[in-house]
C-alpha cells in the first residue's frame, strides 16, 4: 500500500501521520495540495492541523483546493481515505462524510488523552479491535463537536457508520460520536489522534492497529 499524505499549508500532523504509515509497513509520500492527480496512490491520509489557518471555518478552504477532486475520485474508486482531526473536518466539508464539526461546547481548545470506545469493529479501519474495546487516543481540537441532523443520525446508525465514541464526551458531540465511516466503509474520519498513540512511552499504543489495518488494505 502506498499512501498520499496530503499537505495543506497549515497542516501540522503531516509528519506524525507519515511516520505512522511507515511504521505500519506501508509506503507514503507527502503530496502538495496543488496536485491534481493521486493516480499513483492506493490510499489517502489527511492530517490534522489548521489548513489555511482555519481562519474562515475549519476545513472550508481546503475543501476547494486543487487536490480535492483527486481525493474524491480515489474515494469513489473504493480506496481508503482516512482523515484525522482537521482531516475529518475537511472530509465533512468536501461531502465525503456527513455532518459537520462545530466549536466545542466549552468554546475552548481541548487537548488531553481521552478514553474512547471502538463501537464498530466491522470496518476495514478497526477490524483488529474487539467490539466495544476501550482505547486511549489523544484529542486536540477546538472544533470537535460532531453535529448532524436527526435524519443523518438515523442513517448513520442504520448503516452502522459510527466507529468510535467518547466515554466521557469532551466537546458536546452528538451521541458521543468521535469517528465515522461513509456508507461504503472506505472513508473514515475521526477527531482523536491515533497517530499519536503508537507507543506506551508516549502514553498509549492503542492507535497502532488502525494503521496496521490500512497497511494491509490491499490484502482485504
Amino acid at each position, binding site marked *: 500500500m502506498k499512501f498520499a499524505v496530503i499537505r495543506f499549508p497549515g497542516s*501540522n500532523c503531516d509528519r506524525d501521520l507519515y511516520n505512522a504509515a511507515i511504521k505500519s509497513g506501508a509506503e507514503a509520500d507527502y503530496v502538495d495540495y496543488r496536485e491534481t492527480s493521486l493516480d499513483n496512490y492506493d490510499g489517502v491520509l489527511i492530517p490534522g492541523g489548521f489548513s489555511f489557518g482555519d481562519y474562515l471555518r475549519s476545513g472550508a478552504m481546503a475543501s476547494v483546493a486543487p487536490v480535492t477532486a483527486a481525493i474524491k475520485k480515489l474515494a469513489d474508486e473504493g480506496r481508503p481515505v482516512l482523515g484525522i482531526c482537521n482531516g475529518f473536518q475537511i472530509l465533512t466539508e468536501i461531502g465525503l462524510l456527513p455532518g459537520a464539526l462545530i466549536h466545542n461546547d466549552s468554546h475552548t*481548545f*481541548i*487537548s488531553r488523552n481521552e478514553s474512547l470506545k471502538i463501537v464498530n469493529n466491522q470496518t476495514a479501519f478497526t477490524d483488529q479491535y474487539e467490539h466495544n474495546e476501550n482505547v486511549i487516543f489523544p484529542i486536540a481540537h477546538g472544533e470537535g463537536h460532531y453535529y448532524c441532523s436527526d435524519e443523518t443520525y438515523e442513517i448513520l446508525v442504520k448503516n452502522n457508520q459510527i466507529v468510535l465514541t467518547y466515554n466521557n464526551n469532551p466537546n458536546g458531540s452528538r451521541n458521543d460520536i468521535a469517528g465515522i465511516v461513509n456508507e461504503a466503509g472506505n472513508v473514515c474520519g475521526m477527531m482523536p489522534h491515533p497517530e499519536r498513540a503508537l507507543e506506551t512511552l508516549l502514553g498509549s499504543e492503542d492507535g497502532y492497529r488502525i494503521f496496521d489495518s490500512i497497511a494491509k488494505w490491499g490484502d482485504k
Partner: protein
Amino acid sequence: MRFIEPTAQDIKEQKLYKEMGLTDTEYQKVIDILSREPNYTELGIFSVMWSEHCSYKHSKTFLKQFPTTGEHVLMGPGEGAGVVDIGDNQAVVFKVESHNHPSAVEPYQGAATGVGGIIRDIVSIGARPIGLLNSLRFGELTTANNRRLLRGVVSGIGGYGNCIGIPTVSGEVEFDSSYDGNPLVNAMCVGIIEHDKIQKGTAQGTGNKVIYVGLKTGRDGIHGATFASEELSEESDAKRPSVQIGDPFTGKKLMEATLEAIDMPELVGIQDMGAAGLTSSSSEMAAKGNSGMTLYLDKVPVREEGISPYEMMLSETQERMLLVVENGSEDKFLELFDAKELDSAVIGEVTDNDRLLLYFENELYADIPVMPLSEEAPEYILEEQEADKDEAREDYSNEDLENVFIQLISHPTHGDKSFIFDQYDSQVGANTVKESGFGSGVTRVEGTDKAISMAIDGKSRYVYADPYNGGKEVVAQTFRSIIATGATPLAMTDCLNYGSPENPIIYNQLSESTKGMAEACLALSTPVVSGNVSLYNENREGSILPTPVVGMVGLIDDVNFMKSSKVSEGDALYLVGELTPSFSGSQIEKILENRIRKTVRNIDLELEYKRGISLQRKLVNGEINKISPLGRGGLITKLAQLAGYFNLGIDVNVDVRKDLLFSEGASNYLVVAESGMDIEDAVEIGKLSGDKFSVKTKDFELIQSLIEIKAHWEGAIPSCMNYVD
C-alpha cells in the same frame, strides 16, 4: 520629502524625542554620533534601539555577572537564542522572552505574539522547535479583569502554539495581587539542530543581497519596544495600536520556508524581525558582520500605501524574517518563498562602509553609523538601596493549620492546572513523553532514544524576602524540576521581570538577585545561554514582586527508563532533606499575614547539587519511582498535589513540629519508591495507599477523604472561572 513629519528643528525645539522615551542626554548623544541633529526617522531608530527592551541599558551591568560558557555551550547570549551540545552532532537551542506589557493591554494577541516571537528566535538559528513552555503571573482570580486576562492569555498561547503545531509541554503559573493589571507572560521555546546548521544573524560580503520575507509590513506595533520599556498607566489602553497581531498560519509557512532556506549554502545570515522590527534586524546584522547596509524601503512589501520609512522601520508586524544571501543567489530564495506562498523581496544590500543608509524612491531618509547605534547605547548604573530587614517569624504552630491547608490546596496557584494545560496541544509531533501539568516537560529527540527535559520556574516571594538568596533559589528550583525527570541539567535561560529600576529598592532587588542567580549557575553547572529583561512592570498600586524566571533544559540519555518508572498504590514516600522553619516568602505567611517578611533565606548550593545529582541517578537506575521537589506550600501541599494527580490515598506520619509541614526551605524533595530503601538524607514517612488523605505529626492529625482533597485541588481554578464576566 513625500511624507509629512516633524523636521529636525521641530524635534529639537519641541523636545519631541521625549515622547519617544529618550532623555535630553541621550538626545545629545545621538547628535554627537551623527555630528548633526537627527531627522524623524533617525530619531525613531535610535529611540527603539536604545530602549531597555533592545539595549538592556539598565540591566547590562547585571547580565555581565552570569557565567555564559561551559563544556556543552556552543553559542551563548548575543544571538537569537543559546545553543547547547547534546552529543551525536545534535544541539538544543532555547530562549525565554517576556511579552508582559502587550498582554496587559490585549491579552490574546499579546500572548500569541509572545509565542510567535520566541519561535522565530529559535527558527532563525536554524533549529526545528520541539517544545514550548510558558511562565505566567496574574493577580488573584477574584476580579473580573484578572479572569479576563487569564482567559485571554491562555487562549492566545494556545491559539498560536496549537496552530503552528509545536507542543506546549510545560509551564507554571502563580496568582498574587502584586500582578494585578500587570500580568507576566514569559514564553520559552526549545528546538533541535545539527551542529553544522547553526546560523548567525550576520551581514557580510559587500554586494550580498538583503531579502525580506513574511507578512507585509503594516502600521501595527509601531514603537512596541519603547512601550514595553515604560510603566503601564491609565493611558496604556490608548497604546493598543502598539500591540502586534499574530498570524500563526503565516508563521507556520515562514517556519517551514526558513528551515528550508537554512539548508541553502548561499545563505549568509538570518535574523527574525522581532522587537523594533526592521530596525533591529538590519542594524544588528550589519553590526555583527562589521558591515554597512543600504535598504531601499520602497521595495518592502507593505499592506497599504503611504507607510513612511519611519513607520516601516518601527513597525512590529509579525511573521517576518530578514536574510542576507550571496549576490546572485537571490532568485533561488525568492523562488522558494514563492512556492511557500510567502511575500518576499530583495530590499537592499551589504556595503563596505559602516553606514545604515535608508532610501525611499531615491531620497535618503537615514544615514547612521552602524556601530555606535548598537554598541554605544547608553548604560546606566543607578542608585540602589537595600530594603530594611524584618523580624522573622519562626513558629506558626498556634494557627488553625487545617484551615490553612484547605485554603492552600483550593488556591489557583497550588490547585490543578488542567483548565490551562488542556487548552494547549501538548502532543503534536508525537514525541511528548510526559503529559504536561505536573512539573517539567520531556520531549524525545525524533529518531533517537535521547530526550530533552525542559522546565521553567519563578519564585518571586522568596526573591522579595531575600533578593540574594532568593535569586539562588529560583535557579535551584528549576534545577530540581529537571532532576525530577531523570535528566542531567545542561544550561539555562532567564527572563528578568522587575518594576522600575529608577526605584533604588527595586534596583537593589535586581542587583542582588542576579548576583545570587549567577552564583547558583556556577554551583549547579548551568550556564546562561540566552535571556531577556522586562523592567517597569508597575501598576497604579506599585511594583510587581521581583520575578526572575529561569528556563532550563536537561538531557536524558535513554528515555526508555520512563516506561517502567511509575507511581502506584502501596509505594512508600520519603522526605529527602530536613524541615526547618523557613517561612519568609512562604504561602502560609501569605494566607495568614498577607505580607512578606524580608529576612534571610538559606540555601546550600553545594548540597543542592550533590543531592540533586544523586537522586537523578537513582531515578534513572530504577531504584526510585518518582522525584517531586518541594515548593510553594511545603510538604503537605506537595502530598495533596500528588494525591490529586495520581488519585491515590496518602498515609503519612512525619516526626516534626506541625507547622513545619508548611515550611518552604530549599533543597527538599518528596520521593516515591519501594519501602525500606536506603536513600541519603531521607526518612521514610509513609505510603501512597487507601482512600484517605492522612497526615500526622507528633502534635497534629489531618484526615480527610481522598475525594474531598481531590475536589478542592481540581476545583481551584474552575471554581474561580465559572463567573460569566
